[in-house]
């Protein structure tokens, strides 16, 4: 926990933008749009994004253990809770708000991969990265390993894994 009194408002999207308080900010390319994000010394990228109204990225632990805060930073899947916002100046971030591939969304729905949905945006980011990056066909083991950093407390993962395998198969068959 921070006891740094200078820690500014990084929660809330009530229009009290960080610049109003003269706080340090960074310019980040978020989903192709340049945005100014509040970035004190202790603001995580997760909190900076959520404060800017991008609340699709959730955060279940803020300790790098659950993957619910997954975003893509300069092409790499990261836990945004572990990235200091001030290190993101000029970098590119892709969040769930960028959109979900229709085939993946459809497969997740059909396989019952969503219950409470709190893990889902992070799962989608991880699954998207996995599907986009793999060279050969994804094996069940590779999907299991690829999603092992994303906790889900509701579904038992079966539907999620099946959905990713199905999408990979269909994409490979040019469907």
């Amino acid at each position, binding site marked *: *926990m*921070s*006891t740094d*009194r200078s*820690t500014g*408002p*990084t*929660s*809330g*999207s*009530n*229009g009290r933008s960080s610049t109003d308080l003269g706080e340090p900010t960074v310019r980040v390319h978020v989903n192709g749009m340049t945005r100014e994000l509040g970035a004190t010394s*202790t603001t995580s990228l997760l909190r900076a994004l959520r404060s800017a109204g991008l*609340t*699709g*990225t*959730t955060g*279940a*632990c*803020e*300790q790098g*253990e*659950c993957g*619910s805060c997954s975003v893509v930073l300069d092409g790499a899947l990261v836990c945004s809770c572990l990235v200091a916002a001030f290190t993101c100046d000029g970098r590119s971030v892709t*969040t*769930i*708000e960028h959109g*979900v591939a229709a085939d993946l*969304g459809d497969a*997740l*729905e*059909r396989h*019952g991969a*969503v*219950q*409470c*949905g*709190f893990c*889902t*945006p992070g799962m989608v980011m991880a699954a998207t990265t996995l599907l986009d990056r793999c060279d050969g066909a994804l094996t*069940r*083991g590779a*999907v*299991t*390993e690829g*999603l*092992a*950093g*994303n*906790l*889900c*407390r*509701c*579904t*038992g*993962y*079966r*539907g*999620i*894994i099946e959905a990713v395998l199905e999408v990979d198969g269909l994409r490979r068959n040019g469907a």
Partner: protein
Amino acid sequence: MRRVGTSVRRPDVAAKIDGSFVFSNDVTADDELYGATVRSPHAHARIIDLETSGLAADPEVVCVLSIEDVPGARLVGHIVADQPVFADGVARYHGEPVAFVVATTQEAAWAAADRLVVSYGPLPVLHDPERALDPASPRLRAGGNVVRRAHLRRGGDVSGAPVEVEATFHTARQDQAFLGVESALALPDADGGVTLRLATQDLHTDQHQIAAALDLPLDKVRLEMAGIGGAFGGREDITLQIHLALAATVTGRPVRTTYRRAESFLAHPKRHPARLHYRLGAELDGTLRYVYARILLDGGAYASTSMPVAGSAAYFAAGPYRVPAVDVEATSVCTNNPVSGAMRGFGAVQACFGMESAMDLLAAELGIDPVELRRRNVLAPGDAFPTSGQPVGDAAPLAELIDRCVELPLPQRADPDDPYALPGGTGNTSTAANVRRGVGFALGVKNHLYAEGMQEEATATVVVDATGVEVRSAASEVGQGVVSALAQIASDELGGQEVRVAGAHSDHGYAGSSSASRATFVSGGAVRDAAGEAARLLRARVAQRWSVPEAEVELRPTGVLVRGELLPLAIVIGEEPIAATATFLAPSTERGDEHGQGSVHVSWMFVAHRAVVDVDAQLGLVKVVQVATAQDVGIAVNPRAVRGQLDGGIAQGLGLAVMEHLQSVEGVVANATFTDYLVPTTADMAATEVALVERPDPAGPFGLKGVGEPPVLSSTPAIVAAIRAATGRALTRVPVRPEDIVGTS
């Protein structure tokens, strides 16, 4: 086409996938303030002084609230009001709220909460539930440390059988570990009341407790459901609701907070740790003669739901078996450990681990196959339930569950070249030569709905207006899919019309909690009746306006068919919406007599699990390869959602079997992070095979049964039985740790 019975798309799925779904921590308001809870670092301590003056000069701090600021009832509770809104002179568990700091930013609130100086005078910590029973131990509550002793007796002697086994088992404290940590926003209302936008399992029980503490009439406490990131019993009790509501009324501004993970671990009640002593007696052919059990539940510092949990542990202590003589007792005691309360399975999980482990001992003693031993003893239609004597009726398809479960395909041998398949995974620690496979089997039983004389009911309203059909209910969508079920049910009653489900609100009439596998059952019943009535009113109106007999009016998915002409809803309804409200009453139950005998349950849910594990006995590593299950679901309202409940419940049962243990060291929680409290990941989770056994329950709307809890009942003992089979170890404790397998503990 009827929608009940089909895997329709859940209405919230698109928003949950694209990230636009609004969870309780996404809700904000203009001009909002933020709260932070000051919590006791001690498990038991007097509060000597709360020094707030140091914060007075901080421009970011708006106020600090403590017990003195509570205008109404200082004690609240889910069932009995025994838990102070803030520690009242004494803190009784680690993490008990002492004060609530309100500031202009969340970070400032946390920082101020850290700086608040509280002087404590440590008191002796009663952390051993066995010692809580000792008359010489300090009394933590008026009336003694026993919160409830549920003693059930039926039949004759519980000794002297030709074959007897006896053992003691332990189950650990398990956390619900829902991913969406507690968060809410409280808004002051112009009439002096307050509106909360929050995530809870039970709007109305929260509303009563908030109103009592704030000394407000019920109608001035308005609760609107925001998206819930999982619950599993962990949102039955008050955590931040009253603190926020109080802060909003005191400051006149919106106030919100979101707990952090470590705080969430401390804040909500968890699954009771249990010590289970069992003695089973049987004939030489394996026929059970008696079950004797003594179950001790560590209830922690306050009552929460300990009373019904003790009842549940006792009533399910003899499993789903025909047993002529039963003497079982479950006792929940008060300690200075974290508060225990509701978690999926609610006392029946612990009892199931004890009873099924004892059944396996009996099977070994008799040299009978464990599945065969169960076949010889399971309840059949017409039998009496072993602990209550209540007739089980026809809806007890246990023999079929066993058959269907063991018929499910077994997994292949692990591929020795696939590191993902071996215990230890890609750590590459195990070699195939050291891995032994084991198979285990277990049965589970629990009631659905509240029990022991609590009247079960739910109210819902169905409104048909020019824009369509809307269901209004206070039922909590915790992820299980009740919104989908309610829409399916209403749609069927209204000729296949599209139905939307309004956000749950305390104004929508009582629905009770999304717990006890009851939400779809009771609110589904209310929606069926309300939608049926709305359909009747709609037909009557059309019949009258178009001067046709009612029999010639047909509701269709896209409108109303009158003499071959399809009229759109907008034309039929015009400016006069139709609204119908219905209350569904489940069959009533009674309190048991002095021996706990009587019709204490509405009916039961039964389940079978078979687990296959691979164990590296040298390293103590376990890979749960597969869990197969056959579950009695009445009818599957939405088969895909039912499968999701089964898979997810098995994951939690697997967690309790081999991973999950929230540790309290002399009352102080030692592992309140996801680094140290391990929940199953994709790499830990087993493959599942599922058979749904649909035998309509006469008590349920359309014959449905609850489905949420059975998956966590017997999955745990089945997995542990499989590890015993692979290792030959006795394994009397869950979670099973590597040292239990390699024998160093």
